[in-house]
């Protein structure tokens, strides 16, 4: 259990291509909106944490131009490069260290700026996998093959899950409001990496998210401020680089990360969690994740629509955290889960989910 609270947040409206703003403007607008949501002036912040990816931002040290729009001018700022949700992990530890008390966390991804799969292919080490041409879609195809065998997943299971995700995403006013595809459209969509079909992948979008985060000590000194949520549990983990069968099909990292976050929250299992926002980048992920967690019927899965609502790939996990906070603070709008008290957010990163992170929030 932590003594860290979410004071305010903002998400930039997603789009397949945000063409009317520079990345700096996107980041500034989101950070400013989060500060307004929290009723905090930038001058009050004692630190800033950034999570972003140089390669997807198209700059060698992207925070050089983006730290100031993210509110970090003349602040103690650190950037992590794994994912938006890992940024939350770092931010929480900075608060929990007792050294900092009021911070702004920002993460973004203008996916339309970079040739996404080229960036992913350059992740391959040069000796074995680069010449193969491995990229994100192919890695997810390997994953799909592995979990199909391990969890007995059929194509109709996947297609049904995809349609459900799109239906849920279509209700989320903060998302892309996608058109729901028919089962026939999904079934006849072209393969991108067998057995994975194109419509079974969550489309990548532009987007960004910022959160104002404070310590319990800060709240004690500001009794007029009411936080949106308390962060009760947090866990993250990385697994082997190699795409071996055991890693792909076992989902060990995924399950262990959830187990540790639940334990940190002081819970026994998911029966006390009202909803989970899963980072299901494909329909195979969605079905495999649900089966791996063996969730009770009382726990709703991805009411926001998950990555099918918006998928600014690098920060999708932090978008899920924002959606979870909105749920426990009763601000989730059309996708609100009635009476939601506790919500979990999941994010992953690396080829075929080499890294996983989970944050659990409860209403404050």
């Amino acid at each position, binding site marked *: 259990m932590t003594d860290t609270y979410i004071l305010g947040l903002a998400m930039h409206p997603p789009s397949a291509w945000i063409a009317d703003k520079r990345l700096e403007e996107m980041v500034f607008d989101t950070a400013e909106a989060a500060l307004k949501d929290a009723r905090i002036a930038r001058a009050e912040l004692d630190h800033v944490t950034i999570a972003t990816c140089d390669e997807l931002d198209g700059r060698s040290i992207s925070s050089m131009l983006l730290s100031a729009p993210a509110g970090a001018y*003349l602040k103690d700022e650190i950037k992590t490069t794994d994912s938006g949700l890992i940024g939350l992990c770092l931010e929480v530890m900075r608060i929990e260290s007792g050294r900092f008390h009021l911070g702004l966390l920002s993460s973004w991804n203008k996916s339309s700026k970079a040739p996404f799969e080229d960036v992913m292919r350059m992740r391959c080490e040069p000796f074995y996998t680069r010449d193969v041409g491995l990229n994100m879609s192919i890695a997810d195809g390997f994953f799909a093959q592995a979990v199909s065998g391990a969890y007995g997943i059929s194509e109709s299971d996947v297609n049904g899950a995809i349609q459900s995700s799109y239906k849920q995403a279509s209700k989320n006013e903060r998302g892309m409001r996608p058109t729901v595809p028919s089962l026939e459209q999904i079934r006849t969509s072209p393969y991108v990496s067998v057995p994975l079909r194109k419509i079974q992948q969550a489309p990548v979008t532009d987007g960004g998210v910022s959160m104002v985060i404070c310590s319990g000590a800060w709240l004690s000194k500001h009794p007029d401020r009411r936080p949106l949520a308390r962060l009760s549990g947090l866990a993250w983990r*990385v697994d082997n680089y190699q795409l071996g069968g055991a890693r792909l099909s076992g989902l060990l990292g995924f399950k262990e990360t959830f187990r540790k976050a639940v334990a940190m929250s002081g819970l026994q299992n998911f029966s006390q969690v009202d909803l989970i926002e899963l980072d299901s980048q494909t329909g195979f992920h969605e079905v495999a994740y649900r089966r791996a967690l063996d969730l009770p019927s009382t726990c709703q899965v991805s009411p926001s629509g998950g990555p099918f609502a918006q998928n600014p790939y690098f920060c999708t996990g932090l978008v899920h955290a924002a959606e979870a906070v909105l749920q426990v603070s009763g601000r989730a709008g059309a996708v609100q889960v009635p009476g939601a008290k506790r919500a979990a957010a999941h994010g992953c990163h690396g080829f075929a989910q*080499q890294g996983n992170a989970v944050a659990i929030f409860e209403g404050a």
Partner: protein
Amino acid sequence: MPKNRVAVIGVGETVFKNNIVDKTYVELAQEAAKAALDDAGLTPDDIDAVVFSMAPTEFMGVNDVEKWAVDSVWASGKPFMRVHTGGATGGSALHAGYAHVASGIYPTVLVVGADRVTETPDAQHVLNLIWDPFYEQDFALNTVTMTALSTQRYMHRYGTTEEQYARVVVRSRKNALNNPYAHLKGKITVDDVMKSPRMSWPYKLFDICPRSAGGAAVVLANEEVTKRRCSRPAFINGIGGMTSTVFMGDRVGPFADAELSDEAEFVSAGKEAYAQAGITNPMKEIQVVELYDPFSSVQFPQLESLGFCERGQAQNLSDEGAFEMGALLTVNPSGGTLCSNPIGVTGLVRVADAALQIMGKAGEGQVAGVKNALSTAIGGSVQFVNLTILGADYV
């Protein structure tokens, strides 16, 4: 005061040189990690979380290269994150590791990284890409020309000469003779520096750091683990950091919040760290500094902003020998960044070398009676700065 005290209990470095042809990138990181674990008397299973230090991955040509290194640094199955703040990365990674332990969430953390800057034909071409694509990239800006501009301004303001910078190089190369890991070392003269090829006024070749390959690691632990595992740790008593604007023009003139040529972001970052560490007179209370100094001109403004002397005085103290080994303040006994610059871990090397001085493990380069040591790191357009204060005792 952090919730939990933090100490360095193990340090590991590889040799730094132009090319290390017998090891891959991940093997370099592993060599550093193993050295730090051995120094701490730990095994990989004793580590609870790993922080990876790596700046632009374009230098060595694999995006998100830390993911490739996961297995090599025994991070699989553990919490793991990479930190990247340009040249300041190593210092920021140390601060992130500090947060892991100080928060009470992880008792023992490995901070590790490696770089192979020479994998790219010319790092300065990569470094041109760090600037704004619309306004600045076409100006042939890179880290050499950028710092040359701020150095010209410093020289104009304080009357510094090229010879005074050359003496910094001579001292650094001499100190590096005591450092078995240093890339450049040797007995050179002011004349040698002055006669080296002109690069970007006032810089000559010898005023500029090498492009190094190598790795570094430290093991951080909480008070309980430190007591059990290490008889002479380096306690982290203060940390400070500051981010400024990328735009150099906004950092000069009467309305600048922090003057570019003074590296004035260190003033407030230093005050914050000194307050935590109980330092009121840095020159009297700190015996060793390991400064991030990729250019000969970077030491003086740092020393002044960090309160070791008045503005414009560091050059005179340098001339008088105040920064020599065992003198008033020993500056960069390792040879510093001027002698080794594996950019993605250089800030961590600075911390490691400062910790070695506190732990009494600096070998031929050991300064006698070190109670407090300070390390710095700088990144971006001299816009990311951080420092760490290590002590022989907890504050």
